């Protein structure tokens, strides 16, 4: 029966060519949109790895103040902020704060000589107090503290993604890795840390300690402040006033991380929504078209169907044939589409996990089959209702 259907469609491949192309295109679109959605959803479900509620980002702009004085003024600002009621912890940070869209990427290597294991990771320069501000999740070892003041090597905490690449199957604690001409010593391992945002892929990262003696200002212009729950505009205004009172000619900008997150999400989700809306419209369009074409063909095939009925085929068999035929046409289109879709995981161009593509392929295939079957239902019912005597007399 199935073979028979395939032969039927194959023999009329020129007539079915347009339908097959249409289904092929619809599949490709569903696959692309599906991959994007599955990818985003998988990332969204991964934990961020830090606590952003009640954390405010304070951007400082020293204006025209001479460079040499900036760090000292910043120190005063931090002292003052810490003393305000409602402020719990303050820490300096590099500008790649959560949800800011900034990144500072470099290669992390296992050994100084090139050729060993390496991974490109985000470098976060943080102070000891960052443990209390963002509360990154620690898996092994310890967070930076006073003990690190004495160490001759730059202490570093790597995330689990970095460990998997650089130290597969061994404990990284105490290990020494190069950083340019200098050396870093691993003191701890943190869990996944996705400061790039909710929909970003978990990627390798490392925290580098900024010691309290560090008086550079340029990479550490940003402050992260953990405030008491319930702190609001009053505290924000107070903070701004205090900062501007200490730093003459300075300007500052305070943004709660929750707000920054919402803004970033809106920026990413809006195009996704637009994509989905357009895709839904295209699919509805295809479905309607398919339905129209099938309906039309039933009218053209009345004699054929009448003949089959007259020769003893049941109404059920007729329905099955109509639905079966369109499913076979879909299979041809899908085969072409899968051929194209398979190139993505095979070539690995976008660096996305294969499971994402497979899920999207599965979803798109299922959706196309469902769609075509549903579109064929009414025409097949019409076909089954054709009375052989009437149909044959028309001829």
């Amino acid at each position: 029966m199935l073979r028979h259907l395939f032969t039927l469609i194959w023999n009329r491949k020129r007539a079915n060519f347009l339908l097959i192309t249409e289904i092929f295109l619809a599949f490709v679109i569903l696959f692309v949109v599906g991959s994007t959605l599955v990818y985003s959803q998988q990332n969204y479900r991964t934990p961020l790895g830090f606590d952003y509620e009640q954390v405010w980002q304070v951007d400082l702009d020293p204006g025209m103040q001479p460079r040499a004085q900036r760090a000292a003024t910043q120190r005063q600002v931090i002292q003052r902020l810490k003393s305000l009621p409602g402020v719990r912890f303050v820490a300096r940070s590099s500008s790649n704060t959560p949800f800011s869209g900034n990144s500072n990427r470099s290669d992390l290597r296992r050994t100084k000589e090139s050729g060993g294991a390496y991974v490109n990771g985000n470098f976060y320069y943080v102070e000891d107090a960052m443990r209390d501000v963002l509360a990154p999740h620690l898996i092994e070892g310890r967070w930076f503290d006073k003990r690190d003041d004495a160490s001759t090597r730059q202490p570093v905490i790597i995330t689990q993604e970095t460990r998997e690449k650089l130290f597969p199957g061994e404990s990284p604690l105490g290990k020494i890795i190069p950083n340019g001409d200098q050396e870093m010593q691993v003191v701890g391992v943190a869990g996944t840390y996705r400061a790039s945002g909710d929909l970003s892929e978990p990627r390798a990262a490392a925290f580098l300690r900024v010691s309290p003696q560090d008086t550079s200002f340029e990479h550490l212009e940003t402050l992260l402040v953990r405030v008491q729950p319930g702190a609001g505009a009053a505290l924000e205004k107070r903070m701004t006033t205090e900062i501007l009172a200490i730093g003459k000619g300075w300007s500052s900008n305070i943004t709660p991380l929750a707000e920054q997150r919402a803004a970033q999400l809106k920026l990413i989700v809006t195009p996704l929504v637009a994509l989905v809306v357009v895709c839904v419209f295209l699919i509805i369009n295809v479905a309607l078209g398919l339905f129209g074409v099938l309906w039309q063909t039933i009218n053209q095939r009345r004699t054929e169907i009448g003949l089959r009925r007259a020769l003893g085929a049941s109404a059920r068999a007729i329905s099955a044939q109509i639905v079966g035929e369109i499913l076979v046409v879909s299979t041809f289109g899908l085969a072409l589409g899968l051929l194209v879709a398979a190139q993505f995981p095979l070539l690995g161009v976008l660096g996305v996990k294969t499971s994402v593509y497979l899920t999207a392929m599965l979803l798109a295939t299922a959706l196309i089959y469902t769609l075509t079957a549903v579109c064929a239902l009414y025409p097949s019912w019409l076909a089954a209702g054709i009375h052989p005597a009437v149909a044959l007399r028309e001829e």
Partner: protein
Amino acid sequence: MLLSYLKIAWKVLLRRKFFTFISLFGISFTLMVLLVVYAMYDHTMGPHTPEKRVDRLLFITKLELWSDHSQSNSGASYSFLDRYVRPLRTPEKVSIATDGGSLVAYVGNQKLKLDTKSTDGEFWQVLDFDFLAGRPYTVREVREGAYVAVINESTSRRYFGTTQGVIGRFLEADALRFRVVGIVRDVPASRMLTTADLWKPITVSTVDLRDPSYLGPCMAILLARDAADIPTIQQEFRQVVSRVPVPDPKAYTEVRVYAEPILGNLLTRELFRTTGPDNGTGRFMALAFGLSLLFMLLPALNLVNLNVSRMLERSSEIGVRKAFGATSGVLVGQFLVENIFLTLLGGVLGLGLAAGVLHLLNGSGLIPYAHFTLSGRVFGAALGVAVFFGMLSGVYPAYKMSKLQAVQALKGGTN
């Protein structure tokens, strides 16, 4: 003759309403999506306030110190633009402003974050803002470092609660007091190079005007005397840049900075992140054209499928016409006209839908201060796209119909 074709087309449309609905649904939605995208493009790049004379404007927003191994790029510094761009002879006027910035004002305990642009006095002569009240600050006020500001309508409402009688009152932000000298109509956030909530003299900003380094937070806007002068200005600027000494010649070999029209500047530098001499406008156009073609392909195929499968309905008509001597060419013409008529009808519906969607977008606040409208250019685009879509989806069915054998067609067969 055309009239009778149209009459026939109308009758065919009315005959099977369900099929007409399917066709129109596909056409109108396709055109709607394209029109919305085009309206947004026009809104961002087209000649609208404040860049009304956009065809006469050039922008310099990025500067790169370049070598094979090392690149460093950001905006340009004020001193660089002041020394090398301001003295250019070919532009009518040059304005220097900051890329952007922000100030924080408080209304009671309510925080008001104001996007701010610090500009020189020429800024107001190069661009055309709609002033609701007051005036722009002058070149002299900028030179003297006066604490004056032009604010937009929304800021005036939020801070003062009104737009009436605000001129001369003071707005306090970042512990500075600015005297409001003018109120302008809101500039959509999509005009990325000129939008702000508050504009103030660059001499009262945190920008160091004497900082000798090339990289900085500023941009320049050049107004040409005539749209045709644009290449001349670019030429002159290229020559000036080629003589600019490279700072830190050990690390860098080249200073890369270009004066470009709004599209080349804004979209391609941001989208492709290119810094070389080619700003990628050509690539962007090709990409946009390719994508919209790809997007139209599926609905077009759908329409082709429908039309081909409906050929049988018309076979006796075709047979009669052929029998009476109509050539294939005439028949192809007729069916194409019919299809274009259909797509134009869809285009009208699409325009209506697009107007609705743009209205929703305006109301949603997705892009602050956006006010998308269907301009004459959008109408033109709609017409063009509809005709193109009609051709795309009509040629194959028309060809197939015209190829029907007269005898077969009269008999009522298709193959």
